[in-house]
């Protein structure tokens, strides 16, 4: 289990590296080597570290620990077949962690990153519509039940395609360099990450690695089904590359446009759910 946790972290970081590489190749740049994010994490962990003089010390450090902790919990929920609601609760609470990163330092850039992360809270709403759609079919939100349902009835991707699209949008809004990643946009230096340097940044990278792994794994598990680990990894990679294509080819939206697009997606999903319920 410890081995799985550590390898999931490194796999997630490697996937982020592949994400960067694919984006770079699409944009005709050489791009960094695919293990760049792993090197980043190690590099940051060797850099000199302190807490900014203006920061709220306890919160500044605690959010890093909470960030890694919640995604460890999410990994266990996914691998042990817990409730999908817990996973998505953790996904939403990641917002609070981002918020904590941004606000705890007292830096204006971090603060705006944090405020933007609150504004982009719409990105979570499609998620719950997705859950409702899944529940209408499976009558259970326990991941092991969802997997069992798919073993009998075929993948949910085919039975509820709009829910899969909504989930895809949710994944996209958490990928770096994507159209919705307004929280780390370059006019804010590094957004909410600006003041977390050195060891704190290494912790943040570990959290990002775990998050990427868990979200891709969960998306494959919930919409396609359970396979041997190599097949899971191949499917996750395929999903990741498709996300990288979207990220490479679309510009970053302005904060309000990003919220509008996500709200429209939610509205569409709500209409779809109502239609499903009425037909049932």
């Amino acid at each position: 289990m410890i081995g799985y946790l550590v390898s999931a972290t490194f796999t997630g970081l490697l996937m982020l590296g592949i994400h960067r590489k694919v984006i770079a190749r699409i944009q005709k740049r050489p791009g960094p080597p695919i293990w760049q994010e792993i090197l980043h994490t190690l590099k940051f962990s060797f850099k000199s570290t302190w807490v900014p003089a203006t920061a709220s010390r306890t919160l500044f450090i605690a959010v890093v620990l909470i960030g890694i902790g919640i995604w460890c919990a999410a990994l266990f929920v996914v691998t042990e077949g817990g409730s999908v609601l817990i996973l998505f609760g953790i996904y939403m609470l990641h917002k609070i962690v981002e918020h904590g990163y941004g606000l705890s330092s007292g830096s204006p850039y971090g603060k705006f990153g944090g405020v933007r992360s609150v504004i982009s809270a719409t990105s979570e709403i499609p998620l719950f519509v997705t859950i409702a759609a899944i529940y209408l079919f499976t009558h259970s939100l326990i991941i092991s039940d969802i997997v069992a349902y798919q073993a009998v009835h075929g993948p949910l991707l085919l039975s509820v395609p709009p829910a899969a699209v909504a989930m895809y949008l949710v994944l996209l809004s958490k990928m770096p360099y994507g159209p919705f990643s307004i929280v780390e946009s370059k006019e804010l230096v590094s957004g909410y990450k600006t003041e977390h340097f050195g060891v704190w940044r290494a912790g943040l990278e570990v959290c990002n690695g775990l998050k990427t792994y868990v979200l891709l794994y969960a998306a494959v598990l919930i919409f396609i089904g359970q396979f041997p680990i190599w097949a899971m990894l191949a499917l996750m990679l395929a999903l990741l590359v498709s996300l990288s294509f979207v990220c490479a080819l679309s510009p970053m939206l302005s904060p309000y446009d990003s919220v509008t697009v996500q709200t429209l997606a939610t509205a569409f999903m709500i209409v779809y759910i109502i239609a499903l319920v009425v037909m049932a």
Partner: protein
Amino acid sequence: MRRETAFKVMSAAALACIAAWTAMIAGWIPAFAAMAVFIVAFPVFVIFLALWWMYSQGKEDIPFIGY
């Protein structure tokens, strides 16, 4: 914080993880208890491992305020 403190906290977290893992394999504690230990101890281990590698006595600085 001193480097020795960081090392002590890191080792304590690592020991907690290994102890919980062993106890789970041996069947002394249920899996969810071991997971709870990992969830608490793993972040502590990661951060303090890095702090042990590198914790500067550098002076505190004001935040980044522009180029």
